[in-house]
């Protein structure tokens, strides 16, 4: 495959793609944990909020979400800023808008994964923690979270692979990630098939590496269970 000296462009794009995916993963996990806690909480308001979050975001195309965040946010931010007497044009950078949109989408699916994992932890363990005098946050950190992590990992792994592919959507709002750098190279060389195929190979490489990494993480998370399974 002859890349005519545009290889470095694809590599720099892949690096931005990776940064975007990892940032969205970090923020998305927080959204997911918050959503799941809201969904299993005893407050009806929080439950409704959690439910409508997952319902709306999972029913909406990711592309539409990216566009809404990027174009909508500047309208909202400018309206807020004008209240304070600031009337210049405001716009989120494509990277920030991309991270927000992708982590909202990731968080909605992660909410469901975390919720089912939370429900799988026996109630007795929480009661035991209370009996030992642990506070609520300490119970969550020491007892619940390490186990949720183990149960949720396969589901989260799939979501990360979806997230990695969804990063391509952020090229639509002009972030110089892999997809857009490829488009730049196509513009110069007029060889769309070669370059999009090359980019596809880079994505395949990224997904393969992540799959291997996830496999390793799963083994690590299950280390206490090895041999204990029937």
């Amino acid at each position, binding site marked *: 495959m002859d890349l005519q000296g545009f290889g470095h462009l694809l590599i720099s794009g892949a690096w931005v793609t990776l940064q975007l995916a990892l940032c969205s993963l970090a923020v998305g996990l927080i959204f997911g944990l918050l959503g799941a806690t809201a969904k299993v909480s005893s407050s009806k308001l929080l439950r409704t909020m959690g439910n409508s979050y997952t319902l709306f975001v999972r*029913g909406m195309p990711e*592309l539409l979400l990216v566009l809404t965040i990027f*174009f*909508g946010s500047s309208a909202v931010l400018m309206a807020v800023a004008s209240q304070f007497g600031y009337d210049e044009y405001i716009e989120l950078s494509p990277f920030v808008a991309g991270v927000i949109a992708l982590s909202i989408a990731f968080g909605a699916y992660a909410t469901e994964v975390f919720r089912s994992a939370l429900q799988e932890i026996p109630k007795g363990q929480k009661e035991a923690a209370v009996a030992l005098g642990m506070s609520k946050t300490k119970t969550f950190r020491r007892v619940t979270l390490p186990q949720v992590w183990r149960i949720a990992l396969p589901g989260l792994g799939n979501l990360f692979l979806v997230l990695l592919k969804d990063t391509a959507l952020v090229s639509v709002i002009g972030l110089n990630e892999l*997809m857009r750098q490829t488009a730049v190279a196509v513009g110069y060389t007029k060889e769309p098939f070669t370059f999009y195929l090359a980019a596809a190979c880079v994505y*395949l490489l990224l997904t393969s590496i992540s799959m291997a990494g996830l496999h390793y993480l799963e083994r690590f998370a299950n280390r206490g269970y090895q041999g204990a399974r029937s």
Partner: protein
Amino acid sequence: MNWDWTVIGQNLPKLMDGALLTLELVFFSGLIGVLLALPLALLRVSQTPWVRVFPYAYIFFFRGTPLLIQIFLVYYGASQFEWIKESALWPILREPYWCAVITFGLHTAAYIAELLRGAIQSIPRGEIEAAKVVGMNYPLMLRRIILPRAFGIMMPSYGNEVILMLKGSALASTITLLDLTGMARTIIARTYTPMEIFLSAGVIYLIISALIIGLFRLLERYFNRHQHWPSEKPKNLDPQLIDKS
């Protein structure tokens, strides 16, 4: 920012036109997807290793790369080759509509094939053995036993896949098609009311997915009707023949 209801009202008919195109894309790509997934899944469960290689590579490629790249590969990539431009396929591959339908079909086929493979492999062994015992050959067994059972098993997850395809169809707007997302973008380019129009488009997507979920509940009932019917247990039947579930 003041929320503008009138702009939604004025542009609702246009959004509905877009929604119609979205539905069309989802329907045709689903059709192509199921037709392609059938041979793929059957090859994938084959006993001979070298037969499994092609479906495996196909599924690996289409599930491992973004849909956006696939649609660009077909829409822009096809024009790189002179022989495609001169062939009879060019009038089809020139049209963004057919490019979208073909790409979505190929894409969803990979996912459906994987679902179908899982379903075929989870059919209880006894049913296949029983079919062999009564002397069915492979095509008959496929038609009467394996496929109806596999469709019943995979129906709930296939519903999810259709919803994912509905969301994926928004990418048609990147190759100039005026589907629901594309229509929303053109309206916004003129009115500059991104929040109002994008969120109404989002609500329309939500309604469509709710309808699809309802449709698949019905389909699931149809394919798994042997589990519901007869609703009352026959009397005077040998107790061993009564299905306990």
